[in-house]
């Protein structure tokens, strides 16, 4: 900013520097570019089919329909074949709302239904939730993330601790080999891994290692989706960088008190490394949420199919109905975006500090 002498009154020109305005204009312009696709997603998810096809910029209304139904139903359970009576939330789209929207009205498979109340909700979301079976896929992904993280939080800190704070022959060699695997394209690993998984499944299934009673332990089951991600070079690398910064005096003090490596790791190192652990957890979550190629290879059917694969199938299937596809996309993106809103500091700072040193 230009300097002002004491007796000058600040004019507009002095207060607003043209270069500064330009800077703000560029930044705001790029923000619009970054956010525009998301705006398109959200706005089209509320539109009618006609509005989407004519390229409207915002929906005239939210297209509410009383589609969330709380009722006591008596119905045939498709898995057991028994008649069940249950009070539950279901989606029931009215004929009027479905008409001409590419939405199939939900077929009423119940024997008897006693309606309690209905909640109005944008009909596209109801339809997407129902058609894409997104609830199932989100639940699958949550299960996958939970199992993966349990393994990751046990195996990776141990390895990172050994690399960071222990001396043993071949440490640098092993660490180097581990880092080198970061350079390998996933596709090179995915293709043989698929064969390894099927072979492991056959071996365990037929020869009965006592580890698994299921028909196929690996293919289309949780081990294939979680075990390969329970120790990733990236997580171990991040943790190692953090563990190495912990001062040696702490270790000396702990050893004086009779603590071994394991106790020191659990009681001192891990509590001191919470931000890095959080970053690792967040990235594992995002990785599982985004996983596509690997689930395509190792899952069939709905039992373990994760959300990205589910959404991809839905996008393919609803090719002509952008309003439904965008509703599905919003449902898929929302959990991640909410998580990001609460933890963005860790995302950004974790990435920019730990990603660089090394």
């Amino acid at each position, binding site marked *: 900013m230009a300097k002002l002498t004491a007796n000058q009154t600040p004019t507009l020109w002095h207060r607003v520097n043209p270069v500064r305005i330009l800077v703000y204009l560029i*930044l705001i312009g790029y923000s619009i570019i970054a956010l525009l696709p998301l705006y398109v997603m959200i706005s089209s998810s509320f539109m009618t089919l006609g509005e989407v096809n004519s390229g409207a910029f915002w929906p005239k209304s939210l297209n509410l329909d009383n589609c969330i139904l709380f009722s006591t139903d008596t119905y045939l359970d498709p898995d057991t074949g028994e008649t069940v009576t249950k009070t539950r939330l279901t989606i029931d789209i009215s004929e009027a709302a479905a008409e001409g929207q590419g939405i199939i009205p939900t077929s009423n498979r119940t024997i008897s239904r006693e309606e309690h109340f209905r909640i109005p909700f944008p009909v596209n979301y109801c339809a997407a939730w129902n058609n894409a079976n997104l609830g199932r896929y989100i639940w699958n992904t949550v299960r996958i993330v939970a199992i993966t993280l349990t393994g990751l939080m046990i195996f990776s800190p141990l390895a990172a601790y050994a690399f960071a704070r*222990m*001396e043993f022959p071949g440490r640098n060699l092993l660490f180097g080999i581990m880092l080198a695997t970061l350079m390998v394209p996933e596709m090179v690993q995915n293709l043989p*891994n698929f064969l390894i998984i099927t072979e492991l499944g056959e071996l365990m299934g037929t020869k009965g290692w006592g580890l698994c009673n299921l028909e196929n332990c690996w293919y289309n089951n949780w081990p294939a989706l979680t075990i390969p991600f329970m*120790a990733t070079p990236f997580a171990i690398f991040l943790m190692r960088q953090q563990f190495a910064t912990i001062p040696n005096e702490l270790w000396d003090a702990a050893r004086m008190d009779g603590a071994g490596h394991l106790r020191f790791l659990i009681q001192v190192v891990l509590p001191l490394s919470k931000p890095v652990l959080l970053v690792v957890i967040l990235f594992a979550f995002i990785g599982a949420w985004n996983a*596509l190629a690997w689930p395509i290879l190792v899952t069939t059917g709905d039992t373990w199919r994760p959300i990205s694969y589910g959404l*991809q199938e839905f996008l393919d299937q609803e090719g002509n109905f952008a309003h439904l596809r965008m509703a599905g996309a919003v449902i898929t993106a929302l959990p991640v975006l909410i998580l990001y809103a609460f933890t963005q500091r860790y995302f950004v700072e974790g990435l920019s500090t730990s990603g660089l040193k090394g």
Partner: protein
Amino acid sequence: MATQTARGQETAVTRHSTGIFTGRRGRLLREHLTAYLFLTPAALIIFTFGIFPIFYAAYVSMYKWRIRQGEFRGLANFIRAMGDVAYVFFAIIVLILLIVAINAAIKAYRTAREQAIPLRFPLLAFIPGALISYGLAEILLRFITFFSQEQAIQQGYAKILGNVPLGITLLILGFIVSHYVNNIQHKAAAKSPYSILPSFLGPATIIIVCTATAFLLARFTYQELQASERYGLALIRAALMAAGLIIFALAYILWRWAMHQHSTLKTILGILAAAAFIGGGVFFTTFWPIISKDADVDFYRSLQVTVFFSLGTVPIQLTIALILAYLLFQDIKGKALFRVIFFIPYIAPSVATAGIFEVIFSLREGSIANRIIAFLTNGATKSLLWLKEPNPALSVLGQAFGIDIAANWNAGPSLALVVIILYGIWVFVGYNTVIFLAGLGNIPHELYEAAKIDGAGRWALFRHITLPLLSPITFLLSVLAVIGTFKAFNHIWILRDTAALGTTDTASVYFFETFFRGARFGYATSMAIILFTIILAMTIIQNRIAERRVFYG
């Protein structure tokens, strides 16, 4: 479970404390065992699903393997993919392996010289080195055949069955010998307190493994070449292509020479000569498409698409990110907010965002992209096909603006690919901006102050302080971005359309398609290995260039 075993081991260790775990050496041994125990679970997982697959891929790629393992084919899959280029490819791999071996030898020799260790000590390391690498090879081979259908192996290549007991015996023997040799050396070189052997065992193993692999590969290649129906023709073609590559290498050397000259005349002459060599290289390499006619056309196209995708995204995304980061780094209000916004495209699930791009760039008249085009051309053009357009973007856009550009493959990426490139840029700008911003924060403020006192302007500050001090990060990001474009899968899988006639299928997508839809496992893995080698070579070259260009502050 792993923690429990670790704890169990520790108590077992303390109970033994009267035995081998006492004294300084005992404590050290105990520490080593604990460390290995800590590593075991992670190492098992990373080995099984991260490292072993690479070897297994090499094995699978040598078989006809369509769902079931078929007959042994040697290197035929590679030759089918690349045509006669494969021979040059193998020659280059052999060369690289030999270079790695020689480098290791030179380094070991230098350390021996520096520490005044007599040469017979490093040479002694070859005995345990050979034992260990042979033992490892036996175990690895057994591991590979463990996952294969053994009937097929017996029909094809019975020799490949590894012998685990032999391997383990060899390993133990290797370690005993190395311990023994180490002891001898300690006595001989009483002055040096550190152990000598470990520092030479590694290089010795590397040299043995690389030379052996190079030898095997060379023999296989020679066999394939001899078995080829067009033996002479294949040889000539391979030689022609190799000549093209060598001329490129010479051009590069000339260019470096020219850049190091102090006289302008020499520099200009060097540059001219390099340009001439590049021309020659291009002349030879233009034969490649003709020569590789009997290769897999789709494979070459997928490589070309990958290169277009890389060239389209990486420079633009890094430039935009650098500008944004530089602007954000100025004293800006709402810096944190901007950073959060820029990062959103990167964090949002890629399948969902790719779905949005599918809607924005749909072929409907009302789609946003078509309305922008209509606005720019005043409604003179009909709407474009975008993701369903296999023709090059240049010719399509040329038509839209009334310019005629021939539609052939050399005209650049298809319009469909351009949309995918735009998506890539949109996603990764935010990520790069955040990392650039961190890099800018690391530049010491005093440098700017000093330069300002010397009268440097805004541009001079940027050009002479920011850019050079940021170069390590720029380099890191460019390596990551290039590798990222070679790995890219999710969004291309969503955005690809059969109507685009494969012009959007990058290499990894094409392999996946061959593997998943075509169920040609052997062939797909052989192509994946080719891509892997290319990435590896690029990383090495980028590293070499960076050694000179990048300023590590």
